[in-house]
């Protein structure tokens, strides 16, 4: 049997690693990814703040895949043919190579099972003027983060010359997600400037599409703190306030010009804010993959949602916020159209947001999309690998392994500063990610598993996770014992 994995990020790499480990040399595992590097995305924040080099957060995949016996094709997938075409009944994908030696050449790669783990397209185009090469910066990839550090160094020089600098950090689209990463960057920036004794000349503003701070695209959470059940709104506002960071909430950025961001707030007002340095995260979308049936008819709408993410075993019937249920969320990540296709990590289409959808009086949707990064992506990748392995080795027709975001928890560790004695970390855990108001009618989540703490320990955990996950991704001894 042949399993093709599209993407070599957290989810795709995890899926490929477990597929090969469980299937052995009797079966073939092929990974298709446009980049030859694996990157540990959470540590890009440290690249963007000048505390890590690019080489510390990425490595060449050829070495580990050669060792594991995985076929690696550095290419971009263009289309999926789940039923084959006139010449074959076997499903295949069409890829276009991105490596120097074969750049632009195309190939058809057949499969018995397909795992779509292509991750998100960084949709900078959704906000005119947003993104590297235009008017703002990003830390979404290691090269974006390295460029951000170069620009930040220029700001630091201007600060040292006594010139005031305005920093704007946050979400660059009205429905962007990944607030945690931008939040972490804002805090690291504040820490760095304070450490360099330049904070008196810096004005840092956090801009977000969240209804309240601490929503993080997962409808916020409640934590036990100081004898109270406290909302993460208080937690997030307290940290920003401590680091002298101002904030603008309920804001959808709709355009960026040099030094000027345009945004709309939920009350319908249109505003602008000037900046000298802006790190704003884009909206995410699918990669725009096409799907065709045996006769060549375009069946993209059957396989993919309008936002480009792949339909899986979730409940996609549109319903009001009050009727949302954790049962809407997929468990096996199997395509309902083709049972030999799975979508893992950010590539699957969520049935609906987690935060309540909000619209401004002008009709603009301003709310965070659901986050699916980090821990959930790794867990989903592993579960998909286990289900495919069961089908191949044991003939199991109905997937047994599950990983619903309505059941699994997540840990989000936001580092503040860097160093074993000086760094801090804000550790947040929630369980489950999607609030389950039936099981936990008071707080939506297991209050005993939900944590919000600031301290050195959080920073140690973040550093520990960096080295542990790089160790795991490189396939070093006992990598499979390290949880996702």
């Amino acid at each position, binding site marked *: 049997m042949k399993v093709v994995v599209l993407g070599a990020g957290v989810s795709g790499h995890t899926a490929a690693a477990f597929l090969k480990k469980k299937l052995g040399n009797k079966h073939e595992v092929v990974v298709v990814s446009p980049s030859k590097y694996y990157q540990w995305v959470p540590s890009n924040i440290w690249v963007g703040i000048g505390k890590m080099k690019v080489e510390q957060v990425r490595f060449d995949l050829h070495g580990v895949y050669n060792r594991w016996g995985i076929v690696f094709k550095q290419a971009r997938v263009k289309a999926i043919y789940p039923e084959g075409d006139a010449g074959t009944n076997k499903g295949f994908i069409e890829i276009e190579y991105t490596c120097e030696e074969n750049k632009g050449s195309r190939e058809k790669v057949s499969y018995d099972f397909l795992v779509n783990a292509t991750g998100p397209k960084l949709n900078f185009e959704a906000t005119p003027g947003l993104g590297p090469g235009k008017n703002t910066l990003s830390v979404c990839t290691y090269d974006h983060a390295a460029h951000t550090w170069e620009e930040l160094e220029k700001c630091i020089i201007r600060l040292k010359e006594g010139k005031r600098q305005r920093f704007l950090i946050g979400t660059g689209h009205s429905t962007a997600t990944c607030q945690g990463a931008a939040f972490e960057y804002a805090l690291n920036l504040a820490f760095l400037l304070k450490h360099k004794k330049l904070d008196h000349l810096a004005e840092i503003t956090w801009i977000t599409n969240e209804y309240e701070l601490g929503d993080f695209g997962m409808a916020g959470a409640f934590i036990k703190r100081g004898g109270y059940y406290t909302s993460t709104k208080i937690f997030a506002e307290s940290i920003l306030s401590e680091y002298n960071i101002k904030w603008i909430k309920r804001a959808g950025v709709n355009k960026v010009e040099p030094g000027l961001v345009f945004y709309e707030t939920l009350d319908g007002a249109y505003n602008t804010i000037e900046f000298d340095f802006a790190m704003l995260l884009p909206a995410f979308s699918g990669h725009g993959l096409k799907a065709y049936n045996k006769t060549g008819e375009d069946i993209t709408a059957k396989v993919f949602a309008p936002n480009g993410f792949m339909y899986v075993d979730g409940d996609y019937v549109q319903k009001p916020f009050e009727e949302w249920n954790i049962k809407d969320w997929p468990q096996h990540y199997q395509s309902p159209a083709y049972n030999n296709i799975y979508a893992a990590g950010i590539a699957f289409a969520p049935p609906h947001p987690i935060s309540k959808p909000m619209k401004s009086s002008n009709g603009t949707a301003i709310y965070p999309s659901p986050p699916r990064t980090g821990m959930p992506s790794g867990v989903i990748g592993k579960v998909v690998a286990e289900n495919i392995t069961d089908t191949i080795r044991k003939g199991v027709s109905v997937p047994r*392994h599950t990983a619903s975001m309505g059941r699994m928890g997540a840990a989000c560790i936001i580092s503040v500063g860097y160093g074993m004695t000086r760094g801090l970390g804000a550790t947040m855990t929630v369980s489950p990610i999607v609030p389950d108001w039936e099981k936990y009618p008071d707080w939506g989540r297991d209050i005993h598993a939900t944590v919000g703490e600031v301290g050195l320990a959080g920073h140690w955990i973040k550093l520990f996770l960096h080295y542990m996950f790089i160790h795991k991704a490189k396939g070093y001894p006992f990598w499979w014992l390290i949880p996702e």
Partner: protein
Amino acid sequence: MEQNMKVRGYKDEYYPPIPTKGTRFWRTNFIYQIYKFFRLNYKIMRIVVKGHS
């Protein structure tokens, strides 16, 4: 901080709780944070194990 708080008056950043000296001390107390390191790791591991089957 007092001067800062006066400047912040009636702005959003005026109202959230700010950590006291004691809170800031415990955040960086090495012994206490070693305990926290293991406790938080235990909590995270529980979530990981519970999360998928």
